[in-house]
């Protein structure tokens, strides 16, 4: 397995946010994690990214335990719910941010950023500041900023939840395209049933700090707790 999570546990004060989570993920796959608010999905991603520390358990990336590695040395990018573009930098510099940290030559940075801007259809916005672009464009810049450093693993924490329905659908398609193009390995957290089904090669459900990965999309649809059946019933009885 490319990513292996073993018996992760996390407690905040008296609340056991993550009870005992274990799963594995192959390279170039996206695992959707569906769950209600407060079920522990964001905490799980933050532990994998190294932003939070687990009470128990291990995270292995490519067979190597990354528990003692600082978040800035893990090379795992965490994408927040909001695009979080740096307000003091323009679109070009936001995308180039990770490359500047890695001290690449200016010519290389320019070439890579231009290519990224091209694939995200953002070329004409490169000199704009974050407040001058739309929500969907901001999210694309956030993707570009993460992808340009070619991280082995990307953690997406409800990245489209703040977008309107149309932009959300466009972004979902864009994600599918770039996931294929850049061979992304990712965990995609969402509370949207349809999004979970669309985005993931594999689908899981998290509830009360426990994670269940389904064998297939059919198993996910058949399980009562995921709410797919009741959703289908709702539309059928309308």
């Amino acid at each position, binding site marked *: 397995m490319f990513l292996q999570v073993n018996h992760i546990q996390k407690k905040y004060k008296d609340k056991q946010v993550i009870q005992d989570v274990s799963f594995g993920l192959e390279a170039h796959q996206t695992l959707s994690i569906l769950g209600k608010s407060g079920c522990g999905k964001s905490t799980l991603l933050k532990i994998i990214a190294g932003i939070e520390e687990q009470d128990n358990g291990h995270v292995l990336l490519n067979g190597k335990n990354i528990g003692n590695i600082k978040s*800035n*040395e893990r090379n795992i*990018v965490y994408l927040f719910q909001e695009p979080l573009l740096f307000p003091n930098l323009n679109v070009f510099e936001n995308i180039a941010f990770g490359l500047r940290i890695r001290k690449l030559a200016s010519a290389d940075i320019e070439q890579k950023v231009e290519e990224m801007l091209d694939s995200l259809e953002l070329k004409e916005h490169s000199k704009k500041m974050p407040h001058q672009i739309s929500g969907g464009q901001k999210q694309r810049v956030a993707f570009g900023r993460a992808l340009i450093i070619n991280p082995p693993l990307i953690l997406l924490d409800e990245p489209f939840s703040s977008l309107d329905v149309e932009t959300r659908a466009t972004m979902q398609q864009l994600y599918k395209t770039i996931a294929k193009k850049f061979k992304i390995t990712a965990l995609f957290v969402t509370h949207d049933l349809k999004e979970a089904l669309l985005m993931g090669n594999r689908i899981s459900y998290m509830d009360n700090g426990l994670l269940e990965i389904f064998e297939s999309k059919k198993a996910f649809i058949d399980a009562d707790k995921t709410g797919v059946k009741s959703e289908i019933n709702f539309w059928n009885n309308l």
Partner: protein
Amino acid sequence: MSTTFKKRNIFLWLLALAFITPIITLFFLSFSKNWQFPAILPKQFTLENWRYLFFSGGNIAPSFVISLVIALSVATFSTLFGFIASKYIAYHKFRSKLLMLTYFPFALSPVIFALCLKFFFIKMSLTGNVEGIILAQLIIAFPYSVIFFTGFWSQKIKQYEDLVATLGGTTSYAFRKIVMPIAKSLILVCFFQCFLISWFEFGLTSIIGYGKVETLTIKVYQFITEANIFYAALSCCLLILPPVILLWFNKKFIIQQAK
């Protein structure tokens, strides 16, 4: 022109007049001599007051420099350390208790506070010198700066820092490239406020300074108690000069940048 607009204009002019009149009066007094009741105007207009205070033993120039050194030091240290300390307090699990402590210096009047501290300052040989006054004023300005910056350290700033970390940047890189540029305007405003706190401070300075360190504010009080309104007015003109320059700087650079 509508009536409401006219009324608003008149009100603004009156407000401006209320602010400017005392300043004009101060300048007027600083160039005056021999003004005795019931004369409407002074008998003499002269540069003598300015000449005396700067060149013939009035000691205003050294006081101006001392005040400037103290205020700049207090503003620099309190803003810098306040910015850093506020971060640790804002994200600390005992945040509210620690914040409550920072209000403590403001619960007492500066004079009573200075009297409480005097013993420790004497023990540490920090009375009657500039270093002691800087330290004493920092006890007021530093907590102010901490309170000022605590609101800045929001969940969003924390997320920016976490994001920089996952992109490969260290804490100091995030601080230099993202946090500092975002906080730049706030830092300048805090510096300005701390400068003013120090510049106009009298109670702490007179008690800890033992009268040996004569800041411009101390000088003004001396002239007032001597009933020398001309010298007092002149020192007041000097007293308002740096804040006016800072205010202009604030308006020109910070407000324009925000626009």
